[in-house]
Structures are given as C-alpha cells and as structure tokens.
C-alpha cells in the first residue's frame, strides 16, 4: 500500500503529522477522567502525540491498535504507573474528576487507590487468597477491625465472581489458582481498594477462551459501578466488552467512537485497515 512505502522515507514525526486530527467525538458529558493534549516521552523518543480522550462513568472504553501504538503507555499514565520509569515524561493535562493528576499536590499513592489497575499477566502476590485481597484495604486503612476487613474481602471476591470458587480455601496461596481465577483474584484485589476507575492492560491475553469469557462477563457487570478503560489486542474482545473504542496508531489517537460504529463503519482508513486485518 502507498502508506507503507511512504513510511520508509518519512520520519515518524512526519507520519504522525500526516495522520491528522482525531476522528470522532473525544469528549463525553461528565467525564470521569479526561486527557487533553497529552504528550508522553521516553527520554527523547515521543511515545504519545497530543491525545485528547475522555473516560466516562459506567462505561467501558477499549483502546486498540498495533503494538507500540502507545495505548498501554497512555493507560499507565492514567494512574501514574509510568512514574517508576525515570526517563518517562508526561506533558499536557490529565484530570480525574476535574483535578490534574500530574499536579504536584496529587499524591500518586492516593491516585492509585482511586484508579486501580489490572495487569496483562495475572500477578497475585505469593500469599494466601485472603491476604491478596486484604492487602490494599490494610494498606490504606479502609477497615477498622478484622470483621470489617473480612467483609471487604468477601464482598470484593463476590463482586469479582470468584467467591464461590475459593470460599473454602481463602488461606490457600493465590498463586495456586488457575490463570483465569488468578486474574479474577487480581480484579478482586483491585476492587477491594474501592477505586473509581479500573484500568485493565490486556487482562485476558494470558487466558484461555472460557476464562476470557468469564472476565469479559465480569467487566460488563463492573461497568455498573466503575469507569473502565481496557487495552486489548483482541479486536473481538474490544467489540464484545466496550461501549466506546479508541484506535491508536504510532502514538496518536486516530479515531474514537461508539464501538458499534467503529466495528461496522469506521471513518479513518487506518482504523478500517486495522479492524479488517489489513495491517502490516
């Protein structure tokens, strides 16, 4: 294709500039989180170019795009997980309930309690199931006594749809569960901190289809109470679980819109190519 031939001769910046403005409505009413003109740099290399995007309450927004398109980077900016990378620099404005999260006054610890994260590989602590879920509440002092904590643990496990499977073995190590159960345990662990936003970084990429289906079902249920952003490599998954879809390409938000529209009639050629499997 023409585009690919051009890429060899142009610099990344030129290609990015040629992508033009984001297609579709980036703003929603009453956004929970909002990105405005966000640029992210790793040392000198720019990873994200001027992204505007809102994340709404009670909605799942899927971020899709080829590898290295910056979707995970943006996700990790939303709860400042990128702080651990010294060479990572974020400019632009990222807000949670209208407050700038990269403000000096914003405590990343508090932010991460409000914006939970579920990772690609299920990563339970090598501790008991109970301890895994209780860790967050204990850290933030969310429980006054043991009974309180028990309650939080059970409720979180229930919300994550795993309670019935593990209720007899809360003392068993979390690492002994199956992959899908581990991931749901990680979701329970995130919920236990009572977050307002849940970020998911390819939560099903290491799971079999049945475990994936269970997690997707869970994501759909969680939507009632949280704002959810999910990065996924599976377009079918994005189509199944999300209400809005954002397509990233080379660090730029190319198109964002209703999932229904994106998957039947995307406006941008690159989105179309990616969704129909014509990429690279």
């Amino acid at each position, binding site marked *: 294709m023409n585009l690919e031939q051009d890429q060899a001769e142009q610099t990344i910046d030129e290609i990015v500039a040629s992508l033009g403005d984001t297609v579709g409505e980036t703003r929603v009413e009453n956004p929970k989180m909002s990105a405005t003109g966000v640029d992210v740099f790793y040392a000198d290399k720019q990873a994200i170019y001027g992204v505007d995007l809102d994340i709404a309450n009670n909605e799942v927004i899927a971020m899709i795009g080829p590898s290295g398109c910056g979707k995970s980077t943006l996700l990790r900016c939303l709860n400042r997980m990128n702080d651990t990378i010294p060479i990572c620099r974020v400019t632009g404005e990222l807000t949670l309930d209208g407050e700038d999260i990269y403000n000096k006054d914003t405590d990343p610890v508090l932010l*991460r309690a409000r914006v939970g994260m579920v990772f690609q590989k299920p990563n339970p602590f090598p501790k008991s199931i109970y301890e895994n879920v209780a860790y967050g509440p204990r850290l933030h002092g969310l429980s006054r006594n043991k009974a309180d904590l028990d309650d939080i643990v059970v409720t979180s496990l229930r919300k994550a749809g795993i309670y019935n499977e593990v209720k007899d073995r809360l003392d068993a190590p979390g690492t002994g569960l199956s992959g899908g159960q581990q991931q749901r345990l990680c979701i329970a662990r995130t919920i236990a901190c009572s977050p307002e936003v849940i970020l998911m970084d390819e939560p099903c990429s290491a799971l079999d289809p049945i475990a994936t289906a269970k997690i997707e079902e869970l994501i759909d249920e969680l939507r009632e109470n949280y704002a959810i952003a999910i990065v996924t490599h599976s377009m079918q998954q994005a189509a199944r679980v999300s209400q809005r879809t954002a397509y990233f390409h080379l660090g730029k938000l190319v198109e964002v819109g209703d999932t229904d529209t994106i998957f039947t009639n995307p406006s941008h050629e690159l989105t179309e190519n990616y969704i129909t499997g014509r990429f690279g």
Partner: protein
Amino acid sequence: MNQESQQPSSRGSATELVRAGLKRRYAREKRFRLYGLTAIFGSLAFLAVLIISITVRGLPAFQQTFIQLDVTLDAGTLGLTDNPDNAALLKANYNGVIKKALLASFPDVKKRNDKKALYKLMSKGAQYDLQRKLIADPELIGQSKTYWLPAGDDANGYMKGIVDTTLPEKKRRFKDNQIAWVETLKSEKRIAQRFNKTFFERGDSREPEMAGIRGALFGSILTLFVTLMLSFPVAVAAAIYLEEFAPKNKWTDLIEVNINNLAAVPSIVFGLLGLAVFINFFHLPRSAPLVGGLVLSLMTLPTIIISSRAALKSVPPSIRDAALGLGASRLQVVFHHVLPLALPGILTGTIIGMAQALGETAPLLMIGMVAFIVDVPTSLTDPATVLPVQIFQWADLPEKGFVERTSAAIMVLLAFLIAMNAFAVMLRRKFERKW
C-alpha cells in the same frame, strides 16, 4: 516458498543428508555427556580422597593415651605450706609428685638417663590436670589417689601404632626401655586410649597432647559474628538502595563497577587496609575478633551486595507493578513484597560470603591473628585466632600429635562449614515461596 524444496527428488536427498549426519551428531552428544560424567566423577573421586585422607589422619587426634598413676599429693613434695592460697597452688611442684608416682611404679629405674626417659612417658600437661584438680578441691592435699593422666606425645604415638619399632633404636625417639615400660603398663591395664576431651576444651599449646581447638573455634565464631552483624545489614541495605531506589546514571554505574572490582580484590589487600585503618589509625587491639570481623566484613560486603542485587532483580516486576498499582509506596513495595521474595537468594549469597570469610587466612595474618594464643577468647577484644590460621600454624609443627591435630582441625572446620550451610538451606526452605 522455495519451489525446489518441494520437489520429491531434492526432498529425498535432503533426508539422506540429514540421516548421514545424524550418526555424527549423536556421537558428539554422547561424547559430550561422557566428558561431563568424567568431570563429575573425577571431582567426586578427588573429594572422596581428600575427605578420606583427612579423616584417616585426623581421627586418631580424637583419641588420647592416658596412664593410670597412684599419686600421693603430699604437701612436702608439692612445696606447699598449710592452708595455701590460690597463687601458691598455681605455683606448686606437681611435676615432682608425678615423677615420684612414676618411680614408685617402676622401682628398678635408677639411672639418671633412664629416669629422664621414664618421665617423658607422661605429658608435660599432666601437671596442669593435677593443678586444676587441686585448685578445685584443696582438701585433696596429703591424700593418695589414683588418677588417669595424659601420656606424652611419643607414648601416645606408640600406643596408636605410629612408632616404627623395626627401626634401629638410635633412629627413633621412642627408645626400647620406654617401649618395655609401656608394655608393662599395658599388661597391668594401666595405660589406655580415651576420648580426647582436651582437644575440644583447651586452647593452643606447645605440647600436642595439651593443644585444643576451642580457642580457634571461638575465635572463628566471634569473628564471623562480627562479620555477619556488620556486612549483612549494610550489604542488603546497599543492594536495596542500588537496585530499587538509586537513579540509573553514571554515578551509580561507577559504584556498580567498583563493587564488582572490590569483589575481585585479593584478600590480603583487605588485611593491609585493616592493619592501616583499624589498628594503626583507630588503635583497635591487635589479634582481636573485632578487627578480624571488620576486615572480613569489608571482604564479604561486595559478595553479598552482588548476590543480593541479583536476587532482587530476579523478583518478577509484575509483583512490583501489582503492589504499586494498589497504591503501595516504593518502600512498602520493597519491604512487603520484593524483599521477602528475594530473601532466599540474599541468604544464599550471605552464606557464600560467610563461608569465604570462615576459610580466609591471609587478611587475618596481617592483623596479628596468627599470634600464639593459649586462652579461649571470651569477648570481641580478646586476642584470638581462627580455625584456618590454627590449621596453618599446626601444619608447620613436626610433632606427631600436631600432624593428626591439623587434620582434626580441618575436620572441625569442615563440620562448621556444613553446619552453616545446613542452616542456610533451612532458612531458604522457610522463606522460599513460589510465584
């Protein structure tokens, strides 16, 4: 796709080629395995030879020959007055009593030379045994008692069959008349081999039958204690800082290079440093376990830092992400999750460092731990020596008793090492967790 490769003829020839090469490939694999097995069995054989030879040579050291004597502890011979004080008891002439008892056992010995030879049957340490007994119970003065007292080095050697009796008398230290006396004692059942408690209860001595390992053992324990207490916390803290908190820039790179270099510095250099800094500058006592520990800490630090960093690095980043994502601070991430998971690795590194420190001789020579020290150290500033230095000293001495004691001391050192490693394995088991 390459079309030629799909044609049956070339496909067939390719199979032939592969088949032709297969035999050689398998032969090579077989040879390689054989080399490996040879190496393993070779080293096992060497180890076995080493252990067997040390055990065979060292085992006799755990036996000591004792001679039964009827000793009359009369105040006159001892040179004591009535109601003697401790100082007098320490200075009393126990040798005289023993000599009298010997002469009483062999009344036919009259000549001066023969008497001297007879006295040599007993260890010079026998008098100290009597001395201790008397100090413990002064009531014994004037009484006549039967005691088992340690035999001299030559008699001991003869009883253990080390003396070659086929040699002409002139060429041996143990003469015919001495052999006759020992045989007489043997027939009267007044000479016997017993377990050598002295070896474990005494410090060093010029007399092999009186020399013990306790001083060196305690010296080693005290020195290692200081080393562990200093190097473990400092090294782990340094490793955590460098691995988890320090920014990655040229300064930390420089520090890293230096730590790696330190690990490769010859240990004697640390000894010189210890001598210059701790003894000459800070005026800490010579030969003390404290200084030894300080010097060995310097030597052990890089080893523990390097292995601790490796252990910390091997903790999967997903665990860090998980804890960070839940809102733990960096310090909480390290102490709640990373450190517990890295602990087995850190402990392994520590034990390796400690084992190195335990076997180290050179730097300790520089700070005077090679001195001849009889007393068992009881504090960190007492003069002391350590096991490897003790072995080094004994290995230099010609007496038969010291030859076997050298091997025995090596056995003690190895046992110490095995005990330390077993402890480390136990700790590892306790802390090891799967993820």
